[in-house]
């Protein structure tokens, strides 16, 4: 296992990139600890797969270095980086049995047969595929094929990092949570450094101790799942994580006071910086219906069962609230209350308030 360092990494698919727009990866500086579980989360085209391929060596970055335990591996091909990767679609060797599939990465490296047999048995037990060991891999169902692909990634215990590239794409929805939790369990058992690439917040937040959120080739926030949810550093993070995402509302700032549609808004703490476009960000979970507060008219109520998402228009801006219990009628006049400790100001997209709570400690 190894610590991974990415330093001043940039990548462009064009031969002569001119502006920042030509870069698929803009400027990446990262340190990943040995044995951690990390996720790269972002929409398609955000550069997360590019970054993954650079780490695995399938792609050479235009600029910058990659270090495994302070050893520069930037120019090494994938097979010399000592890594494992699980792909979006199951990659199995059709003509081999499941057992031989699992043994393949070890045999290629000349590991002795006794050890191979032990490792294969161990991995098969972890993945609960012991009874399939002697079946030809081409006869398996897609989710079992993907399990075998994962098994091949985990069978070597000397790898620097195991990478997962949207590994649950082909898995049936009602089987997804099983594999999702299996992966988490595997990480806790083998304690390898693992990097998981996905656009699905549940997969990322479930799997990783630390999530790297990416947008347009840039890292917008690195944090624990709780940090990403509770205190998004950027409106994109607030929007992308959570369902529905954070309300991002146009705000006016004058003399230290912030207002939205003419209503004064109490924020979590002091405002920092100045100028730029300002927005107020608050998650629907922290908006409630109240007797007083921002006057609004209910435009939509969708009952999700365990709670309802109420959309109410303040002035001309819709605001979403998660409501449990009594539901208002569509068209009803209501008042919205924002929980101050979760109401923040964003300036040009970036967080621009101080957290009083953390300032005190």
């Amino acid at each position, binding site marked *: 296992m190894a610590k991974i360092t990415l330093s001043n990494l940039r990548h462009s698919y064009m031969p002569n990139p001119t502006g920042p727009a030509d870069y698929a990866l803009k400027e990446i500086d990262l340190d990943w600890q040995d044995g951690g579980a990390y996720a790269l989360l972002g*929409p*398609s*085209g955000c550069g997360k797969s590019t970054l993954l391929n650079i780490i695995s060596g399938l792609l050479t970055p235009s600029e910058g270095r990659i270090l495994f335990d302070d050893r520069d591996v930037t120019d090494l091909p994938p097979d010399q980086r000592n890594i494992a990767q699980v792909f979006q679609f199951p990659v199995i060797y059709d003509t081999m049995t499941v057992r031989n599939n699992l043994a393949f990465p070890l045999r290629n490296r000349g590991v002795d047969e006794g050890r191979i047999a032990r490792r294969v048995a161990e991995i098969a037990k972890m993945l609960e595929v012991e009874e399939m060991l002697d079946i030809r891999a081409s006869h398996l169902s897609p989710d079992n094929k993907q399990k075998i692909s994962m098994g091949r990634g985990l069978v070597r215990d000397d790898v620097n990092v195991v990478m997962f590239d949207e590994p649950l794409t082909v898995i*049936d*929805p*009602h089987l997804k*949570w099983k594999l*999702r*939790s299996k992966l*988490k*369990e595997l990480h*806790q058992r083998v304690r390898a450094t693992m990097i998981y690439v996905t*656009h*699905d*917040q*549940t997969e990322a*937040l*479930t799997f990783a101790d630390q999530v790297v959120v990416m947008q347009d080739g840039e890292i917008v926030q690195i944090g624990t*799942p*709780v940090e990403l*949810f509770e205190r998004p550093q950027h409106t994109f993070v607030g*929007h*992308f*994580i*959570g*369902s*529905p*995402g954070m309300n991002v509302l146009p705000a006016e700032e004058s003399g230290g006071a912030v207002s939205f549609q003419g209503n004064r808004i109490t924020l979590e703490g002091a405002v920092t910086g100045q100028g730029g476009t300002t927005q107020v960000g608050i*998650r629907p*979970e922290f908006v409630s219906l109240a007797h007083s507060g921002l006057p609004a008219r209910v435009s939509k109520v*969708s*009952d*999700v*069962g*365990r709670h309802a998402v109420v959309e109410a228009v303040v002035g001309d801006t819709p605001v979403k609230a998660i409501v449990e219990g009594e539901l208002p009628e569509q068209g009803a006049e209501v008042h919205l209350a924002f929980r101050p400790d979760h109401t923040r100001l964003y300036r040009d997209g970036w967080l621009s308030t101080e957290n009083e709570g953390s300032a005190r400690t």
Partner: protein
Amino acid sequence: MTIELKSASKVIRGVTHIKPTSLVLETGHFNVLLGQTGSGKTSLIKLMAGLDPLASGEIWMDGQNVSRLSTQKRNVSLVHQFFVNYPQMTVYDNIASPLRVAGMAKSEIQGRVEEAADILQLRPMLNRRPQELSGGQQQRCALARAIAKESRAVFLDEPLANLDYKLREELREQLPELFAGRGAVVVYATSEPEEALLLGGKTALMDDGVVTQYGTTAQIYRKPENLTAARVFSDPPINAARMSKVGDTATLDTGASWTVSGAAAGLPDGAYTLAIRPHHVTPVPAGTDYVKLSGKVLVTELSGSESSAHFQLGDDGWVSLAHGVHPYEVGEAHEFYMDASHAFYFTQDGKLVA
């Protein structure tokens, strides 16, 4: 517009895909087919679209028996899970293609294509080819084709399944508005309970080629007629356990017991199956009327604002779903609190009794 199935069934090479099904689907709201992969959603859609022959029964559209009509003559649209567009045509020609086939005048085609493109925000891309678009745009192009065609029925077969999570959320929010007031019967197949709830309208729960329950989405979520329906309409899976009732007291096999109230109080003594949704089983007590349970935590998951814990309760795997983040130790026993006032009670053969 209506689509009516009169004990319609589908059998292919001796295998029954759809057992005789009677159902009336109407316009004005979404008709969601909810069921797991292989439950027969796609089979039912193909049957209604005329892509597969009926083994028995009839299908009526708008008072007309269409059982023997070919797909072409039924005037329906189908949007697939995969983005199906003509790769060699521009977006404009893709949307226009069914209208041209119908022999519509050029000026009218243009009007309709532009209207559909506006609704789906495809105006700036009309001259591009599908492969130059993102996945979300490609699927919007397929949807625009269905809208421009103004068909009697629109079948959406898991149209969002292959889109990014956030895109899915956005498009799902727009979908009901897109089809509102167009007169077509909209049938939407999905395997995700949450999607059915968000789309609203009516839902048909499907399991093993049978529609187990049909009704207003929120209503069947609140009152599943049987255990199968309750299981289909729950994600994470609904918690179930064997329970016995003597007098006012209900007791689980694990020993947990409580005093039943409401409709359940009137049930005769005996053995039942209790089922309760994961969000009514929480790591902290909610309300006053709760039952304490204890189980070994197997797996924990976090999705945005909610966290879930899978735990072992006697012989059954249970799930708890709660707001916020909770410190679980995987492999350790934890206490959970069940709000029994939200429990469903089923007879042993799976019928809802309270």
